[in-house]
């Protein structure tokens, strides 16, 4: 048989040698493992906390209040209508939309009006609306029922001003028209301005001067604003467009800080880990010149020697990473109350284990290429 065709060491025997090497140099093995655990712990903890902050920011960003766009046609010349609201509601990026009429008449409790006469502090603004008031997360019926066309619900503040605690009664406006009030509506942040009004459900012909639109995600806000012109019939007057003030700041914080910090910590840890492992493994390999020389004299190839060194590091790195990740994850839970993202955890673990393997390569090459005769002469 030609020399090239002669079989070499079996993988399981190689693992035997690796295991014996790890046991035989227990202190060195433990130090390497400890360094790996520590590196993994630091990275998991840091990136876990950064990630928790980012997730908190992201959650804040998706709060409904930050996804609201308010469009006001101050001049009343844009030609907005109930049809515009329907068009907007049909958009995929729109979760919810209503249209509001001008604050026209001022109304007060018809029953109380008789006894007091004149309009004062107990009067509220009366506005028509179109669209499904309760079809989104921002408005809730606190008491009473949903209004039919021509009926009204009142905001909580308006209900107090009118003296309609349970939301049932009649509002009489300054033109003597009377509207039945059938419920109280509770308005969340983002549309809190509606709190002060009596909202009269309007029919298809209602004139609209203000739109309240809730987008599905915060990322939909800017594209929606950019396309808004497509839905405004006439563009003569200027439209006032308002969105949550925190939106821009939060988006910026997320894009810049969180991402950059994460990457810097990770790269630093990977480089440090690789360097530490390289130093530790060089030391180990130097201490074991005799062992590797003897193995070469028994027929181990260079690649077998290299594989022993790399496999030892891979095993130590693997155990170290798992221990470090477990402790690091526990720390993150204690510190933030959020469990770290398992994908992030796995990615960090793999990268660090790879760094351990990469760090061991120079020592493996040095061990493999050492001249065995040097060792044999000193046996």
């Amino acid at each position, binding site marked *: 048989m*030609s*020399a*090239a065709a*002669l*079989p*070499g*060491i*079996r993988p*399981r*025997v190689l693992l*035997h*040698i690796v295991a*014996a090497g790890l046991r*035989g140099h227990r202190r060195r093995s433990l130090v390497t493992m400890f360094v790996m655990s520590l590196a993994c712990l630091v990275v998991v903890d840091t990136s876990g906390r950064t990630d928790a902050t980012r997730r908190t920011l992201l959650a804040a960003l998706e709060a409904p209040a930050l996804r609201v766009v308010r469009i006001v046609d101050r001049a009343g010349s844009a030609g907005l209508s109930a049809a515009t609201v329907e068009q907007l509601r049909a958009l995929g990026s729109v979760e919810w939309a209503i249209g509001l009429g001008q604050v026209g008449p001022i109304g007060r409790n018809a029953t109380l009006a008789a006894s007091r006469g004149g309009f004062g502090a107990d009067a509220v603004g009366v506005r028509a609306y179109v669209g499904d008031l309760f079809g989104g997360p921002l408005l809730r019926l606190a008491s009473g029922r949903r209004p039919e066309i021509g009926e009204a619900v009142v905001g909580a503040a308006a209900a107090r001003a009118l003296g309609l605690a349970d939301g049932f009664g009649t509002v009489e406006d300054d033109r003597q028209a009377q509207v039945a009030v059938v419920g109280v509506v509770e308005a969340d942040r983002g549309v809190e301005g509606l709190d002060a009004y009596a909202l009269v459900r309007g029919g298809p012909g209602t004139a609209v001067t203000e739109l309240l639109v809730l987008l599905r995600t915060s990322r939909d806000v800017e594209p929606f604003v950019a396309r808004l012109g497509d839905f405004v019939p006439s563009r003569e007057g200027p439209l006032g467009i308002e969105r949550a003030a925190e939106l821009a700041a939060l988006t910026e914080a997320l894009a810049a800080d969180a991402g950059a910090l994460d990457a810097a910590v990770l790269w630093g840890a990977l480089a440090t880990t690789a360097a530490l492992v390289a130093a530790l493994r060089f030391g180990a390999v130097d201490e074991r010149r005799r*062992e590797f020389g*003897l*193995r*070469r*004299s*028994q*027929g*181990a*190839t*260079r*690649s*077998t020697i290299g594989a022993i060194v790399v496999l030892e590091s891979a095993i130590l790195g693997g155990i170290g990473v798992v221990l470090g990740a477990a402790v690091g994850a526990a720390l993150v839970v204690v510190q933030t109350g959020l469990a770290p993202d398992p994908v992030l955890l796995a990615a960090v673990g793999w990268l660090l284990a790879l760094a351990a393997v990469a760090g061991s390569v120079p020592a493996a090459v040095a061990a493999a290429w050492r001249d*065995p*005769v040097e060792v*044999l*002469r000193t*046996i």
Partner: protein
Amino acid sequence: MIGPRLLVRSLRFGYRDVPGLIVDLDLSVAAGEMVAVRGPSGSGKSTLLYLLGLYLRPDGGSIRLDGQETTSLGDRERSRLRAHRIGFVFQDAGLHPDASLVDNVAEGAFYGGASYGAARARALALMTRYGIAGLAERRAVQVSGGEAQRAALCRALVRDPSLVLADEPTGNLDPENAAAVIEGLRAAADDGAGVVVATHSPAVAEACDRTVLLA
């Protein structure tokens, strides 16, 4: 097997500081033959064994092992030939101190592809033959020099070698242990290996079939 185990022709080798250490050396070792290499200290006995063990590359000439030319082979193939065909015994046993004696012996079969179990079984069989089976699970540092050297001999033989090289194998041993090692080398030759022993000892040379003298 027809032809010698080892056939060396016109072998030349020198170190940078010691040029011309080996010049035009011819040597043939047949199966069953045991050859002594003698010469004063520094004459190149160890160097010759390292050349025959395929650790060093000659400057010229030919080394055939079982008819196969080895001088043109790469490191991987030379390692494989060591693993399968060449057993080496040093002056010092050269065992892994913390490994058991049987694992040390079994290592001689590892790099040639034996399974762990098979290598240990063969190791135990040889150790029985050389009277050290009772020490199989002892760590190498816990046995005497003579016992360690017998284990080293077993490690050389466990791969069933074509060629056994021994560099002053009795140099550190008392006469009784030395005799056991010489007996072991002779037995390896009787089993069909070619044996080359570098030695100062007249007793060892006497036990050999032939002596090659290095100047």
